[in-house]
């Protein structure tokens, strides 16, 4: 794959070409109103920080209808089940951050893998092209580099775009991305050196990187049994903010909502911070207190996902949970505590 440029004067045409036959989404609004929205080509802006929420709802809406059913048992066709599969229109997302694209790529392995495919996720995923905008000025709460990502990270993207003094530079990462750039009339250029130096600068701006590496080598049960969890969880409110804002949290709860003659089956975001997440029909709860629930969240992000996804951590360092947690439970501090776990002597 290769690199391309589009000069400032041609950007308007570039965005028009993106929107040709597709829904164009880009970050709009500021602060807590900043989100990926359908955007007219002339309204695309490069001046945004990060979207308030992660983009996961694009592929995994908070509430998603799976099917509808109704009862016509007094008629010959009896009970009727109708799929509610809606893959939406072809879409191009311009301006997703590399951390968030990485988040989607981690969730993607949950929804599409060698064991099964989730058609609801896949339908939308296949119809979407992701053009990332590299972070030349990461926010104070950002720590993607410490988690193994980069402000110029490529995971989950079809194209990585970055600012140049005159327009935008691009790195095509998939065939989908290459086609799109070519169709938009982008000029090929060798930008590898420029990307490398911009990336190094952006990583440096995130300051000293804490070393979370020991977690990867520590035994799972040693991490699990470490006594710090009680203190780590003590101030947790067990609300769902961290999970709802997390770009990789993907757990859901399937619910049927019925009326007399029919109903719908839907899935809704769920949160492992709630006691209800694990309670059994018998009333038994394998995660009875917030200590077990908090441990689950951090173990899942920093140990279980890496074990299942070739070492890739389930935290992308986007910093949302860090700033949104009402009681300032900071995954960076928790990760350091985990990294300091004493291994059981052999």
């Amino acid at each position, binding site marked *: 794959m290769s690199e391309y440029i589009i000069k400032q004067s041609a950007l308007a045409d570039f965005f028009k070409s993106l929107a040709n036959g597709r829904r164009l989404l880009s970050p709009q609004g*500021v*602060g*807590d109103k900043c989100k990926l929205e359908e955007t007219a080509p002339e309204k695309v802006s490069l001046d945004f*920080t990060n979207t*308030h929420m992660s983009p996961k709802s694009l592929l995994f809406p*908070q*509430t998603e209808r799976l099917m509808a059913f109704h009862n016509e048992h007094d008629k010959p066709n009896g009970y009727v089940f109708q799929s509610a599969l809606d893959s939406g229109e072809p879409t191009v997302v311009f301006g997703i951050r590399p951390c968030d694209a990485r988040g989607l790529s981690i969730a993607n392995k949950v929804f599409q893998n060698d064991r099964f495919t989730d058609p609801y996720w896949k339908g939308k995923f296949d119809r979407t092209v992701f053009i990332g905008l590299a972070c030349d*000025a990461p*926010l*104070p*709460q950002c720590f993607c580099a410490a988690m193994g990502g980069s402000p110029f990270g490529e995971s989950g993207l079809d194209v990585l775009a970055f600012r140049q003094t005159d327009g935008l530079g691009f790195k095509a990462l998939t065939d989908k991305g290459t086609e799109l750039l070519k169709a938009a009339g982008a000029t090929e250029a060798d930008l590898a050196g420029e990307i490398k130096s911009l990336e190094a600068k952006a990583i440096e701006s995130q300051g000293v990187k804490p070393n979370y590496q020991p977690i990867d080598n520590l035994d799972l049960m040693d991490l699990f049994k470490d006594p710090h969890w009680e*203190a780590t969880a*003590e*101030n947790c*409110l*067990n*609300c*769902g*903010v961290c999970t*709802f*804002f997390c770009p990789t949290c993907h757990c859901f*709860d399937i*619910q049927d*909502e019925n009326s007399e003659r029919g109903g719908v089956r*839907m899935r*809704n975001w769920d*949160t492992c911070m*709630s*006691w*209800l997440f694990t*309670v059994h029909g018998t009333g038994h709860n394998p995660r009875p207190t917030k200590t077990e629930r908090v441990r689950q969240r951090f173990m899942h992000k920093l140990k279980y996902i890496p074990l299942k996804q070739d070492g890739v951590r389930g935290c992308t360092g986007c910093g949302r949970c*860090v*700033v*949104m947690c*009402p*009681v*300032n*439970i*900071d995954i*960076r*501090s928790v990760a350091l505590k985990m990294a300091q776990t004493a291994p059981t002597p052999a």
Partner: protein
Amino acid sequence: MPQLSEITGKIRESAKKLLTSGQADVVIGYRQGTVPMATAPFFARTPEDCDQLVWSNFARVNLANYLSGRPGKVALVAKGCDARSAVGQVTENQILKDNLYLIGVPCTGMIDNNLVVAKEPRPISEVTETTDEAITVKGNGFSTDIKKEDVLRRNCKTCVNRTPKLANELVGPEVNGAAADDYADIKALLGKSLEERMAYFKDLIKDCLRCYACRNACPLCYCPICFVDETRPQWLGKSTDAMDTMTFHLLRGLHCAGRCTSCGACETACPVNIKVREFNRIMELTVQSNWQYEPGMSWDQKPPLTMFQTDDTADFIK
């Protein structure tokens, strides 16, 4: 103009004394946050732990939230509103008065981060605060001074009970209350038609994610199982359906009637900045005008909605 460090010093001194003498097994206070403009609830159990306790213009979490059902002797760092919530926990039999020690901090209000960001939208990487009157926020190439009175949380702007009068001790000079909430907007709202009011509330909660941060940050919401979490039977749908979401907010508002101390913990916790207190303010006004009742003002008062009196003025109850 008290220095924050003075109050911090007194909190630590008191906490150490309470832990050493065995008057408290744990002191619940605040420690410095790991990000700018934040503190974190902190549980001090040894005199050494106490050196992490701080006082700040960002001590927003209502620590009375950690009292319900807690065993042992607890000391709590409490603002005016938190102390009233703690008194409420006693009057609602959630904790024994004898097991509770309130380290009262006369409070001049806490800062709403959203208002700071509105004044200084550039990314803030550091904040310095030395007094309870102003802060300085800093970032890449800027340093901006902000007066606290310009960025106070709205519940703090109308707080008349800033000094926790029922506390066991005060760690700072008493402060005067602000001008009381006149509920002008709520009165105007109540004068509107049912349809207009419904439209107002629908718009108010349109961004709600049902993460329940408001409920979980609230010291009144200590039910072992909240009605929204009941499964046998399930009272409420789990989706983002507007009516289910509305039911949650309306019922929470009603459940808190006559108990809410306007601490603002719900609004501070809300990740999408919903003015959750609108529901509570209506109930505050209703309870105040019907029963002249303010929660958390004495150790032996009972919330009006938990009481029955033979001379009740309401017809429906007789």
